[in-house]
């Protein structure tokens, strides 16, 4: 659908497939989506302007849900990304490089191998979702979540410096007035972990002390503005896995029922569901 003028276009022109979860590649040239054209949900890519479909996966029991879309965005410029898939296995992919790998179940050593999605909900002994990262070069899968945490929907930021995710870490027990039950409402928040050890936290304390704007001349300010306007170049991710979750901090937003979010440049969008 053109953003301003023009008609809606049927990109895939199929009448016999359930196609869903579309997402753009960062350069806007390719669209990834799920399709069951082969009988099971698979992940496919197609030129955004139209063209042949390329199915990247061949799951026997289909793939997982929305996470595929968001993670494929990271896939273009990262070597480490992850997507949940059916059959309690992992797909890890740099999809826009047309490179996808399934990790056999046997390589998953503990916890629930999922970045999100509900397909693997019953596979973990404690029913908690954890974030795994898989390095497509070393072919090594690493669980970075604490097994006690319920973390899901990981997403790298476009600059490749942080990994954000949703986690149900807020405890908001609400007592019923009519029975001895407790409901936990609005448990989720968005958390941000810096990928490199020693990197500044996005929510580190700030101080204006000793920073006099008046001491900068106009040239310095222009240089700063140019630097801020420059888009970061895509580069392979570098991740210090040790202590990754210890570096995660909550985004300062109220607890809510967040099921999905998007990271674009320095903007994180989310739409919490109302309490029911």
């Amino acid at each position, binding site marked *: 659908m053109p953003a301003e003028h023009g008609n809606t276009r049927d990109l895939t022109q199929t009448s016999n497939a359930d196609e869903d979860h579309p997402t753009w590649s960062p350069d806007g040239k390719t669209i990834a989506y799920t399709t069951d054209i082969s009988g099971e949900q698979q992940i496919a890519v197609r030129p955004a302007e139209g063209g042949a479909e390329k199915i990247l996966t061949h799951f026997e029991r289909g793939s997982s849900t929305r996470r595929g879309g968001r993670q494929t965005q990271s896939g273009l410029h990262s070597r480490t990304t992850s997507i949940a898939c059916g059959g309690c296995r992992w797909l890890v992919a740099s999809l826009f490089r047309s490179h996808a790998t399934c990790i056999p179940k046997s390589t998953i050593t503990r916890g629930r191998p999922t970045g999100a999605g509900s397909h693997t909900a019953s596979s973990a002994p404690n029913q908690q979702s954890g974030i795994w990262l898989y390095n497509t070069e070393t072919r090594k899968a690493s669980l970075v979540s604490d097994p006690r945490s319920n973390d899901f929907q990981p997403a790298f930021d476009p600059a490749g410096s942080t990994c954000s995710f949703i986690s149900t870490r807020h405890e908001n027990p609400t007592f019923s007035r009519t029975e001895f039950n407790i409901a936990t409402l609005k448990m989720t928040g968005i958390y*941000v972990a810096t990928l490199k050890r020693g990197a500044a936290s996005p929510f580190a304390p700030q101080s204006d002390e000793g920073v006099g704007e008046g001491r900068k001349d106009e040239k310095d300010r222009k240089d700063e503005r140019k630097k801020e306007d420059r888009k970061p170049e895509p580069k392979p991710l570098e991740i210090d896995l040790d202590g990754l979750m210890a570096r995660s901090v909550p985004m300062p937003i109220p607890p809510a029922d967040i099921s999905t979010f998007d990271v674009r440049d320095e903007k994180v*969008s*989310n739409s919490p*569901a*109302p309490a029911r």
Partner: protein
Amino acid sequence: MIEGPLPGEKPVLHVYDLKERKDEKVLEDLGSYALSADGKEGAL
């Protein structure tokens, strides 16, 4: 009877600016949303 959202509860689209460290309510009463590749446009 359990029926729909609690009174006063509405789905709201929030955008948090990591640079400015500010959360902004962009839109109320939406279903789902999707962003364009550059994040400048959205479909509701």
